[in-house]
């Protein structure tokens, strides 16, 4: 044995007990199982999507058609799904990022120490509300309040493409605009949680140094906390983006019921990858039809995999660089 710090280095003879062997292989086996599981997700989705992709009559990536009613004549493309998915997630990010950053700063730098924990708990409670309830709330309670604002945006900023007329009325409530705001609420705790943790780790010496130079609290934040935590904040936002991309039921409830393709405005309704699959579950009888939806699921899987992987990478890189 070469490692000097190993506790058993000087033991005369290493006894390997049966119990040890069994337990270790159980634990290691579980580790291997988990890794195999994520590989299996990719493999099985690919396997099931492949026949349908081959039978697809239109270009999968660039077609705006989704017609899987005839299993012998499948036509499905993901352009529209991709637009609604990405647009609603981006609207959510644009709203949630500044707010989360503000909350994280408030909780770590401003709130009195005794209140910081209960306050953080309140924000975490947002994550405890199931997404189906957010969907209901979005349609029934939030949308009526947002509608005047949506109409105003549509009327006055209609010359900006994303605020132009969509495939539903701006004040219908069932559009990307409403969906994005609901998503923003849903990903708020995710982003805030990560950001709060990073901001908390700002070295006290940096903060005290800035204070000693006579910096105001805002200047302390700007010169020490923010530069230190920026990457963590970005990583956390990516995690939030991953959640938003995969969110299903809230969006199914808010956006559903339109068969016209979107006009690439935030006043579009339609379906995201996830909500399309949820809505299509009634069609899950024929393997070829299911395969079309599994293809969409595969794209979503790859997308969220990439976003989450980048998020973790940014997070771990930021931790290392500043340690």
């Amino acid at each position: 044995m070469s490692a000097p710090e190993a506790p058993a280095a000087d033991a005369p003879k290493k006894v390997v007990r049966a119990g040890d062997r069994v337990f270790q292989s159980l634990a290691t086996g579980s580790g291997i199982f988990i890794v195999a599981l994520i590989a299996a997700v990719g493999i099985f989705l690919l396997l099931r999507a492949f026949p349908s992709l081959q039978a697809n009559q239109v270009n999968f990536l660039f077609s705006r058609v989704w017609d899987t009613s005839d299993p012998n004549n499948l036509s499905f493309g993901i352009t529209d799904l991709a637009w609604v998915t990405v647009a609603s997630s981006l609207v959510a990010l644009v709203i949630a990022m500044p707010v989360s950053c503000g909350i994280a700063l408030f909780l770590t730098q401003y709130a009195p120490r005794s209140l910081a924990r209960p306050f953080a708990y309140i924000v975490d409670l947002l994550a405890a509300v199931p997404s189906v309830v957010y969907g209901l709330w979005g349609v029934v309670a939030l949308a009526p309040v947002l509608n005047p604002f949506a109409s105003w945006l549509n009327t006055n900023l209609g010359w900006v493409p994303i605020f132009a007329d969509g495939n539903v009325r701006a004040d219908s409530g069932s559009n990307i605009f409403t969906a994005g705001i609901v998503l923003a609420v849903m990903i708020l705790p995710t982003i805030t949680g990560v950001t709060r943790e990073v901001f908390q780790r700002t070295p006290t010496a940096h903060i005290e140094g800035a204070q000693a130079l006579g910096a105001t609290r805002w200047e302390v934040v700007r010169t020490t906390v923010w530069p230190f935590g920026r990457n963590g904040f970005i990583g956390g936002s990516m995690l939030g983006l991953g959640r938003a991309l995969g969110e299903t039921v809230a969006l199914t409830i808010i956006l559903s019921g339109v068969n016209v393709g979107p006009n690439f405005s935030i006043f579009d309704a339609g379906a995201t990858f996830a909500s399309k699959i949820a809505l299509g579950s009634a069609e899950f009888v024929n393997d070829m039809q299911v395969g079309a939806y599994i293809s969409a699921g595969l794209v979503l899987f790859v997308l969220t995999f990439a976003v989450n992987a980048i998020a973790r990478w940014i997070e771990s890189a930021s931790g290392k660089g500043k340690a």
Partner: protein
Amino acid sequence: MRTDTADVERPAATPAFQPLGFGRKVKNGAATTLFGAAFVIAVIPLLWVLFTLLQKGLAPLLKADWWSHSFNGLTANDFNGGIYHALMGTLLEGLVCALISVPLGVLVGIYLIEYGRDSRFAKVATFTVDILSGLPSIVAGLFIYALWITTFGFNRSGFAVALSLVLLMVPVVVRVTETMLLIVPDELREASYALGVPKWKTIVKIVLPTALSGILTGVMLGLARVLGETAPLLILVGYAKAISFNIFEGGLASLPLVIYTERSTGTEAGDYRVWGAALTLVLVIMLINLAASLLSRLFAVKTK
């Protein structure tokens, strides 16, 4: 020192503690207000959601039938019936999911901390757990559909749902087990080894019990999270209005499924059921969360 006019006009001896300029004061005040406002912005939807839930969902919960009956035989406009079938379905699926996720997750956590620490494979496994924790629930559902239903040929059932929930719950259990095992002091392990206790017995009898309260808390939180998932339910199980305890065969109701399905009724009675189920679901989740925090507090005193 530079000598612009400003410096010349000021007394030279007091550089550090000058009174704050107006601009800096305003900026500081604006920032403080903004960050406080951000927190308030987060609280508004929370209170709003809870208020809407109570306003629309409290009436059904106050009727005795709600807790003891199912929706079996109910017409669209009928205000009777109750959520018992869905409550049982939700708890049943949660229980089966936990029975699989907890041992699996804890074992992975043990591998990561006690056996594989810092090894290359442990890094791969940690990354996998990260990815799993970001897996969209609909993809988990689709995977189980592709594996359990298409490939193995089983029917749609509550058990398939429980399997898909395992994918969502395991990362939570692993993460919390890891954190808790890391907190267990190495002295404890070394003392045990010194007495000649084998490693596996040390883990089972010394390390795990020390970390138990934290792990249990994490398990409850993970469970609370997966019980509200709706997406896998839509593709993996049929909705049943009657009470069923059979998780392997036939339709099985659950609270999220009731909310989603009954919404399409479009009647006043349908709304009544939807919001009643929504409030019940949130109550169940809040209760589990509460139990988790009580548990952690209770156990924490004992171990110290």
